[in-house]
């Protein structure tokens, strides 16, 4: 639109009125349509979630539902333990996964000899393609028994098992995006630091990582989104008990696991309560993304 008005302002005397650019308009519309697919999908999902989930909020009350601690459909719909479980498992995964991922990214971008990087990088990329049910099975037969032995507890299907599986699952996303953003930095950053007498490691931690912060944070945001939305692997390793976990060595059920486990048969107000679980999840993701965008903006300025 803008370009059209500019043309008519500056070029009006130089050439006759141009023929209407049919092809240009067509592509213009095509681009708009494509851009709208995502937005429209999100709007539809949100509308659908709210229209299905509101009856539960209306019957049980927002406070009862969000802060209630007992999930006993069709009588009580407290999802607070699941909110806690989702948050702990996600932040645990970020706490373990992100440092490993950033260091791996630095290693791949700066330190690794070519032959080693050629082994590590495809391995990481392959990790991204493994279906989550396989991660779940790996967790069930390796991590769960390992936790039983290490902590000497009767059952290893715990929050901790979920945290470890999620930490592994977010690695490829964070590594790939962080590595790309470190590589995208202009070489003068590093050259300048080295010329000023900084050591290689010093320049990595004080110059390169801060400079690539915006890209790394994007990677972390996507990692968080993956962790909070993960369902299948979590169902297999976390025990799914809908009670408030007393520690990370107790079973717990996340918001997504709650929806996936009960959606197939739930009817009436129970189904509605599951949709309201979805609303809560959606709000969380919006808040997380907004928070990260804010931090990102602040760090750039």
């Amino acid at each position: 639109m803008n370009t059209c008005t500019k043309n008519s302002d500056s070029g009006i005397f130089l050439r006759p009125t141009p023929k209407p650019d049919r092809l240009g308009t067509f592509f213009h519309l095509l681009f708009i349509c494509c851009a709208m697919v995502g937005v429209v999908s999100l709007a539809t999902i949100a509308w659908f979630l709210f229209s299905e989930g509101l009856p539960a909020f209306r019957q049980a009350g927002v406070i009862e539902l969000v802060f209630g601690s007992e999930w006993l459909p069709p009588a009580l719909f407290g999802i607070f333990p699941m909110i806690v479980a989702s948050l702990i498992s996600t932040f645990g995964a970020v706490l373990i996964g992100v440092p490993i991922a950033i260091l791996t990214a630095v290693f791949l971008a700066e330190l690794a000899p070519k032959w080693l990087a050629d082994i590590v990088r495809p391995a990481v990329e392959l990790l991204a393609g493994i279906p989550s049910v396989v991660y779940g099975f790996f967790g069930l037969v390796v991590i769960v028994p390992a936790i039983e032995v290490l902590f000497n507890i009767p059952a290893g299907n715990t929050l901790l098992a979920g945290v470890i599986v999620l930490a592994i699952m977010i690695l490829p996303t964070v590594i790939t995006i962080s590595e790309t953003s470190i590589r995208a930095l202009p070489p003068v950053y590093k050259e300048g630091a080295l010329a000023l007498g900084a050591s290689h490691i010093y320049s990595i931690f004080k110059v390169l990582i801060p400079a690539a912060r915006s890209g790394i944070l994007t990677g972390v945001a996507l990692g968080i989104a993956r962790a909070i939305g993960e369902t299948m692997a979590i169902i297999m390793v976390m025990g799914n008990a809908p009670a408030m976990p007393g520690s990370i060595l107790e079973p717990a059920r996340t918001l997504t696991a709650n929806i996936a486990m009960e959606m197939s048969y739930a009817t009436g107000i129970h189904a509605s309560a599951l949709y309201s679980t979805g609303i809560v999840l959606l709000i969380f993701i919006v808040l997380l993304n907004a928070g990260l965008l804010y931090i990102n903006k602040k760090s750039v300025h």
Partner: protein
Amino acid sequence: MKKVIGLAAAIGLMTTSLVQADSTITVSGSTSVTNVMEVLSENYKQTAGKTVEVQGTGSSAGIRAAKDGTSMIGMSSREVKTNEMSADTKGTVIARDGIAIAVNNSNPIKNLTKEQVAKIYRGEVKNWKEVGGENKPIVVVTRDTASGTRGAFEDILKLKRKVNGIKVSAIAATAQVGNGNGMVKTIVANNPFAIGYISLGSVDSSLKALAVDGYKASDNNIAAGDYTIARPFVLLMKDDVNKEAREFVNYILSDTGQNIIVNEGYIRVN
């Protein structure tokens, strides 16, 4: 626009004729019944040449599917409550199944009373010592609320309580939840402290079925009514369901069908 409508109509005609020619019988519901239903459908395809599509969605979903007509036949692995039925839906019992109380092979315990099992699941008993076992904690494994096995288990052991006038499950909220017979089996087979309940037909050497009130979980004891944690497998159909579905149910109730049920480890009704 006309062309598009014409095309859509043509595709519609083609697909409907395909469906009619194929005459697939659709069955959905209990995951416990699905096992035996898949074997029955394979045999039925060989003898009668008709395709049966089986989907395991849980008993409650199966009952609903039969009532709505989304599936021709609904499967339930528990008694169907009267308020779940509509006037034109009928149930047929095709087999009986015991629910085995399963523990890990390394657990020395052999027998529990129904009362003890109920207490373990309510969370009142937390150590194997209290029911005559070793001094070890009990890891309770249950099924998701969709499961007919859980519904039948709660009904038989009276694991129900009332909250705000609505009946809800009394199984402790801290119990681990497995979403399927297979997952409960994996957890119990790998955890020496675990107790779970699964369909008797799916018990194998990876875990151990306990005797309840002194009676082993065997077909004879269930048929005689001594082993009391047992339930029916019910198929639900609408009165106006098509001929193919009705013939398939008759096949299951015939001698051939009932023999397949026995081979799969369940108890025949005819």
